[in-house]
């Protein structure tokens, strides 16, 4: 392989930092949304449950460009929701970093909710019931009993969401474009470098993403193996 290495002197780390920032923020918010949502889906008896499960899982089967297209329409200041956001929250989501965060959250939702949901469902119901008969609220039980006993589901959900947010391309390209320092994350940068035949730079970003994803997944499997042995 004979790659042009002239990029090395003008190496642009910004897309990587932006990717990391995006993935961290999206994963943090996903944890906050995912835990209550998965708890609700796992224990609810409402008939709406299949509908909610379907909506949460849609990003798994939907082409990212479809999701990105509709998000772009929704965020556009020419449409009602976009206007409302801009008028009341002074938030412009199209072609902006907050828009990327929101897109990543929606797109990674199933990767957080599904492991957590099965984590909750794998715990014996008698744990919650026992805690109730001991006078404790379900909120107390969630943090004191349920979550500590599904560490591997929490880790899987967190890490898969994080890894997925790092690698996301289609949605981000649609709603974020390719604005350096704002929406130009690593996956976009790779595409861009290849387009302009800068294979060396593309290889650099690709290698970093490959290494990060590999390390993260390896970490998850190692930890799950350890917890599996302890249990």
């Amino acid at each position: 392989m004979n790659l042009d290495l002239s990029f090395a002197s003008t190496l642009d780390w910004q897309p990587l930092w932006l990717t990391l920032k995006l993935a961290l923020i999206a994963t943090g918010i996903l944890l906050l949304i995912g835990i209550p949502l998965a708890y609700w889906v796992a224990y609810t008896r409402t008939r709406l449950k299949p509908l909610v499960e379907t909506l949460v899982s849609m990003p798994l089967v939907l082409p990212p460009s479809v999701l990105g297209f509709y998000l772009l329409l929704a965020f556009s200041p020419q449409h009602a929701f976009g206007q409302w956001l801009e008028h009341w929250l002074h938030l412009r989501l199209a072609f902006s970093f907050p828009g990327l965060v929101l897109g990543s959250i929606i797109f990674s939702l199933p990767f957080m909710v599904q492991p957590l949901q099965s984590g909750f469902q794998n715990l014996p119901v008698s744990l919650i019931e026992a805690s109730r008969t001991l006078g404790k609220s379900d909120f107390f039980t969630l943090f004191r009993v349920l979550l500590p006993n599904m560490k591997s589901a929490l880790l899987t959900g967190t890490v898969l969401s994080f890894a997925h947010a790092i690698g996301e391309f289609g949605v981000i390209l649609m709603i974020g474009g390719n604005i350096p320092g704002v929406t130009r994350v690593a996956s976009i940068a790779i595409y861009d470098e290849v387009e302009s035949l800068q294979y060396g730079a593309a290889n650099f970003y690709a290698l970093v993403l490959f290494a990060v994803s590999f390390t993260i997944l390896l970490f998850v499997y190692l930890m799950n193996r350890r917890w599996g042995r302890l249990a």
Partner: protein
Amino acid sequence: MIDIHLDKTLQSRGQSADTSLHLHVQTVLKSGDFVALVGPSGAGKTTMLRMLAGLTEPDTGKIVVDGEVWFDAGKKINLAPQHRSIGFVFQDYALFPNLTVRQNVGYALGKREQDWLDDLLGLTGLATLHDRSPATLSGGQKQRVALARAIARKPKLLLLDEPLSALDIDLRVQLQEELARLQSRFGFTTVMVSHDLGEVFKLAQQALRIEHGKIVQTGTPAQVFLSERHAGKLNLQAQVLEIRREEVIYVLSLLIGKDIVDVIASDDEVAGLKPGDLVAISAKAFSPLIFKRALADGGVG
């Protein structure tokens, strides 16, 4: 006084419509009594226990405990389990796997009740195990932790769902004695689901036999169990360990309780039996030989 009047229709899912069970229970329990619920599986015993705890909502009825209304369908009162003074021992123990023995037992206790927690751990023989995690405990130890946790808040009503059924006979006897001791010391009203007649006789003052969702018999264990059997006969449950042919007769080795007994049997009786089968044996009891067990046996003392 615990006034119970409960109605609930239970549907077994995924089966034909006629498998629904109508549970109708009306009874009064005396405070401080030890009450056993007996009867075939699927008769509604566990559901009754869960309704007392507030884990399952009755369709209609009333639960009044010492003048306090826990459930009243007419007045739309349904206290959450959190607000009922109960302790519940689940069949699977439901110990919190992430907490130590001490944290499990003290789960419902505040910081100021640590002295009582120490007492309780001592009383239930858990003091030396206090920092172990539930996964490292034996069945009997887990059962003890579940029991200690259930009585930690000194509940009015202790509900036990076949608490000892998974344990071997020695451990069972030991824990039965412990349970009797705790019951007489703290005086809570106890309702226990049990399939073990010996256990019921040993622990309960009152037995309720439930069949098809109805209380069909109530009284002391002797009244409930002896009336249906032929007076003057010993009736024992046994398991066949071995069948030997000796000359013209058969010798059956039977496990009765924890004793092994050889009995003589005829061709007819042995026909169709194989080791592992459960059998009932019956003998006339008009002149049994009765001895007090020596203390060295580890018995009644």
